[in-house]
């Protein structure tokens, strides 16, 4: 469908100060005040584009705010919120094709499909990601090495762009991999069809292997490459010490385990503490000594746990443990959680990861948490994965350490590039334009900009991150 934004231009749109909302990046490291508008139909999106054009403002597309940095933030823009356009529309129980609206969260999708034995082929570490956000970020999960990224399991997407209106795009379309992993810069993804994964059981068998050295960790990762899910938690205070975990879906016929009641864990944790209040308790540990203590405790508990037989966990509890500790990131307040995530090729990762942690230790800014995953390259134009490993480091930013942390992040970035690193924009709040060029390459960026000029010829859509990195807009 073609649209003419000019047909809406009767008179310039005037923003209403009473609609200004403060949106935060997930980690509270950045915020923006923008004119909030909730979308309840594709027509609303087109009207918002027209209003932006008539008033000279920009549009920033926003899902459920799970990105850590400023990829879906822009001050003084129209912030389009898709979370009310969220129905799961259909599931073909024969083929497993599920159609949902862009604002549907992964949680809405699994709650709809799992009782019938269909699971999402790829999930992020949170089920609160919207479908549109997940496609725009081309999310990956613990099964990245086996199943690739979310976009690789899509039958089609429907996008509403300022330049081309409503359009259905399939994987064979030349722009598919520009839009998927395109960070919402082409238009709102209003619907998508996902090829779901058939399951007969809603449980996974999880096995832990505590490690004491990086060599040990990488050896296990490579040994288990055929395993469905692989991830490692690493102690940010003691380089090389960690817990490698692999998991695989149980193949037995267990329909009872597909029920939601089985999947959702208790809302209480140890000592009867309500999980939605846990961040208040965690605040006391959100400091160097506290996290050092908890990390040591976690590792020792894993060492003592018998690991040979493994343990059964519901899929949901395994994939999204932190979602059952609502607002856990508030434990970092009044500071902020800044995550540094980089992908490094297999051959360089054993050198790079210890070097990153060494630099953090020298700066006396040890990450409170480090997570390592195994990856394969992704097909997006703005590709962020390589055949190798990623490491995500969680740093606590405070007023006092802000400048030192920025300096350290710069050092870690340069160090990562020297090992062939690539960065994931969902986690970013600190990269520079030159870093974007090194991560994606000039050719990919040119291809991205060329598509952007067709889908959004007036450059109505942008975000603080895209301005900062000068990918398709300049500040």
């Amino acid at each position, binding site marked *: 469908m073609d649209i003419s934004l000019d047909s809406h231009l009767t008179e310039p749109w*005037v*923003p209403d*100060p*009473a*609609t*200004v*909302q*403060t949106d935060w990046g997930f980690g509270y490291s950045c915020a*923006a*005040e923008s004119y909030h508008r909730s979308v309840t139909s594709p027509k609303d999106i087109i009207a918002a584009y027209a209003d932006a054009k008539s008033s000279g*403002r920009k549009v920033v597309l926003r899902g459920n705010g799970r990105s850590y940095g400023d990829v879906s933030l822009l*001050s*003084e823009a129209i912030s389009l919120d898709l979370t009310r356009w969220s129905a799961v529309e259909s599931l073909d129980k024969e083929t497993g094709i599920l159609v949902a609206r862009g604002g549907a969260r992964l949680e809405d999708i699994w709650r709809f499909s799992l009782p019938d034995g269909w699971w999402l082929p790829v999930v992020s570490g949170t089920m609160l990601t919207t479908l549109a956000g997940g496609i725009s970020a081309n999310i990956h999960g613990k099964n990245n090495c086996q199943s690739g990224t979310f976009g690789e399991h899509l039958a089609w997407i429907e996008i509403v762009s300022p330049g081309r209106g409503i359009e259905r795009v399939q994987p064979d379309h030349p722009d598919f991999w520009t839009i998927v992993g395109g960070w919402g810069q082409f238009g709102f993804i209003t619907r998508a069809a996902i090829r779901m994964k058939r399951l007969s059981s809603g449980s996974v068998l999880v096995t832990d292997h505590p490690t004491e050295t990086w060599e040990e960790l990488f050896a296990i990762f490579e040994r288990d490459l055929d395993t469905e899910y692989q991830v490692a938690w690493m102690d940010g205070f003691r380089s090389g010490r960690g817990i490698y975990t692999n998991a695989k879906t149980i193949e037995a016929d267990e329909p009872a385990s597909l029920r939601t009641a089985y999947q959702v864990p208790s809302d209480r944790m140890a000592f009867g503490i309500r999980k939605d209040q846990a961040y208040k308790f965690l605040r006391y540990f959100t400091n160097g000594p506290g996290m050092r203590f908890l990390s040591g405790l976690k590792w020792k508990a894993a060492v003592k746990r018998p690991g040979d037989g493994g343990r059964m966990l519901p899929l949901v509890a395994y994939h999204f443990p932190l979602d059952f500790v609502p607002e856990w990131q508030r434990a970092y307040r009044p500071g902020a959680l800044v995550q540094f995530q980089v992908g490094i090729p297999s051959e360089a990762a054993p050198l790079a990861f210890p070097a990153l942690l060494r630099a953090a230790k020298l700066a006396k800014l040890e990450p409170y948490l480090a997570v390592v995953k195994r990856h394969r390259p992704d097909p997006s134009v703005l590709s962020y994965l390589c055949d190798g490993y990623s490491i995500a480091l969680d740093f606590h930013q405070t*007023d006092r350490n802000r400048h030192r942390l920025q300096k350290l992040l710069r050092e870690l970035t340069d160090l990562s590039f020297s090992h062939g690193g690539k960065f994931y924009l969902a986690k970013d709040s600190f990269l520079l334009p030159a870093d974007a060029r090194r991560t994606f390459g000039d050719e990919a960026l040119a291809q991205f900009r060329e598509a952007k000029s067709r889908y959004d010829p007036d450059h109505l859509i942008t975000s603080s991150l895209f301005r900062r990195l000068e990918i398709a807009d300049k500040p």
Partner: protein
Amino acid sequence: MSNGVGYKFAIVVGASSGIGAELVRQLADGGCRVAAVARRGDRLQALAKEYPNRIIPIVADVSKFDETPAIFLRCTDALGGLDLVIYNSGIMPDVAPTEFNFAKDHAMIETNFSGAVAWLNQAAERFLSSRRGTIVVIGSVAGDRGRRGQPVYNASKAGLHAYAEALRNRLSRSGVTVTTMKPGPVATDLVAHLGFRGAIPADQAARIIIAKSSRGSEQYLKFSHRVIFSIIRLLPSWIFRWIPI
């Protein structure tokens, strides 16, 4: 705090001279982007040249109330956000002891009070929605009592204090801070004709205002002012019949 002055984006209304110009300078010097709003464009341009990337001159007449919403939006758009709004516009024309000139009085009410309501209503609506922000109202110790010399100036500032207090109470649960500053004599154009001795230099006044901006109550510039003007507030009204100012 995000920078030296704790604010990233500010609007100063009444920015072309005196305390306003100093507030703009000091906010900009502390790393803040400032929309400097005033009628006198030439003075604003000169001010903007001091910090070209941080001061945005916006020529506007606060008594043109219909234009306020659009100018407010222009300011926020140009700034790229908003943390702080300071309403500093004020006039105090020379009024003779027997003069009852409605034109002068009306102009004072429009600039000192109605303009504040027009601007700060915009700020309040936005901050209420975004659930954060700071509003600073530059009142005056002259608003504490009704004196012989400046009946309408006193009344306009008293009205402004009451409006600011109401705004503070209204927004108290929304994360919005409203601070009323009550400067005593400050060496500015406004009071030059009164020849006050011991007036505080404008740059010092601005520094104190920024430092106290987040306190969210009525503030005097100095402790001695608080003591003196608290006593003045308690004096019986008839005493002011014998004080010429």
